[in-house]
């Protein structure tokens, strides 16, 4: 018994872990507030009902001393009527509760998925095991592709168009929105307005293979000016290498297998099947949240991606130490 109590207390402690950058109760948008509010309401209401049922079961089981069991063969219209009332009112109460909760969820859905204005349109494509992010614009010269890190302006409605290139993934940034699946051959839309600046972590929420757990995404909500500055930077082509080491890095990158898969805009590397590396150095994390960005981690990733994300779709490539050094230096400089 004491062990159980201790366990329950331990579980309570776990709740205090509910702060931080990936938390659906610590909301940063109206949409996730609806969801959080519904969650809390459901939890309280259902706990109350559960407790009431438990109490009723206890009372019924213990019975009242000295009271005889009702003999089912005798006819007692008073007892039948009372039983009828009790059962009838319980059924009615259940119906009311179910209807009210369904209605509230429905209203929440309407608010989440109803038509709204949008300031920024972002196409997010799930891949095993990273996110391709494409900012769409009427003016095609202002459309661009990046990966794993999304920036959005605070207070502006943003429209995410979700899709997948292989299996089903699910886009989930708990502080900003509920989950929505990304499915091949289908476009799901999700609208989000961030209410305060911050860095919010998200996670693929549909099991999609070996590295599902390492398929994170980062949403950076910032002021309009900061967002515009970031967007202009991303639209630009990759900066030219400034010293010999980086020039050598670019040459090794473009000549080797890297260019079969990765694009660096403004160079010959134009592969379309892996994250766009044009501004990889400006991202906070590498490989969908697997490693913090740094020159050392870039080298570690390139030398052996499979020790960091076993089974990942980037092969181990034989490079000389000089090439490795030069490539990591070059990629880090792509701010």
């Amino acid at each position, binding site marked *: 018994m004491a062990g159980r109590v201790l366990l329950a207390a331990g579980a309570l402690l776990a709740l205090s872990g509910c702060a931080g950058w990936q938390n659906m109760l610590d909301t940063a948008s109206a949409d996730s507030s609806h969801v959080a509010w519904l969650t809390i309401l459901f939890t309280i209401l259902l706990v109350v009902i559960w407790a009431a049922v438990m109490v009723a079961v206890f009372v019924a089981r213990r019975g009242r001393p000295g009271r005889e069991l009702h003999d089912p063969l005798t006819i007692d219209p008073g007892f039948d009527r009372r039983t009828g009332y009790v059962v009838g009112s319980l059924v009615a109460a259940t119906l009311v509760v179910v209807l009210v909760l369904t209605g509230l969820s429905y209203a929440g859905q309407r608010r989440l998925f109803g038509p709204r204005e949008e300031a920024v349109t972002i196409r997010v494509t799930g891949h095993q095991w990273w996110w391709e992010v494409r900012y769409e614009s009427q003016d095609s010269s202002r459309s661009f592709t990046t990966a794993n890190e999304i920036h959005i302006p605070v207070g502006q409605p943003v429209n995410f168009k979700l899709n997948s*290139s*292989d299996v089903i993934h699910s886009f989930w940034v708990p502080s900003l929105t509920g989950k929505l699946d990304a499915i*091949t051959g289908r476009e799901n839309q999700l609208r989000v307005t961030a209410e305060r600046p911050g860095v919010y972590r998200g996670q693929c929420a549909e099991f999609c293979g070996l590295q599902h757990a390492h398929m994170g995404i980062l949403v950076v909500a910032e002021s309009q000016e900061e967002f515009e500055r970031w967007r202009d930077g991303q639209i630009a082509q990759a900066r030219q290498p400034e010293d010999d080491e980086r020039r050598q890095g670019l040459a090794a990158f473009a*000549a*080797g*297998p890297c*260019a*079969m*898969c990765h694009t660096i805009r403004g160079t010959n590397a134009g592969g379309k*099947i892996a994250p766009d590396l044009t501004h990889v150095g400006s991202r906070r994390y590498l490989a969908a949240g697997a490693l913090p960005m740094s020159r050392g981690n870039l080298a570690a990733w390139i030398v*052996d991606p*499979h*020790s960091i994300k*076993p*089974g*990942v*779709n980037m*092969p*181990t*490539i*034989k490079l000389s130490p000089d090439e490795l050094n030069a490539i990591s230096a070059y990629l880090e400089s792509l701010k």
Partner: protein
Amino acid sequence: MSRRILLLLLVPVLAACQREEREYRANPIASETRETVALTALSPGGNEPVVATSGKGRDYENNAYHLSQGKRLFQWFNCSGCHAPGGGGDIGPPLIDDKWIYGASIEQIVQTIREGRPNGMPSFRGRVPDDQIWQLAAYVRSMSGNVPSDAAPTRADHMHPGPSESRRPVSPPIAGGDVPPGGQAPQ
């Protein structure tokens, strides 16, 4: 008693695990494998040509993981652009039939991909790691039904004409073949 028999019956199931074995980190990494192959069955003096293969090819052909990776790479590296998405042939010759200009063994196909071929097949040496070349070659063999059907891919990520690779009839290879349209065009 019957339980023991059941357990015994389960033992052979373990043998099937080989088709699923996954080797993510190719070993030795990305260095070129040496296989001695000949492009013809002729050799002076009526002897067979000198051929020596390591048997590595079988590990790839019998393994479901390698074959399905090969299928994915066939699209990714745009083999499908020249040989058509299903391998039915376009600028490049069909890969689903029984005719082979440059040989049908997995070692010969590895050679074809690595070195390129004169009438328009690019050389992928240094652009695709060796391990992936083997995966591609194994997959090319599965297109004409020349790998075990329990290891061949059974599904595609996208629309797919005709039966899956695991249900293709076996087409025993015939040497020779037609010069592809790419080779007929003035170069």
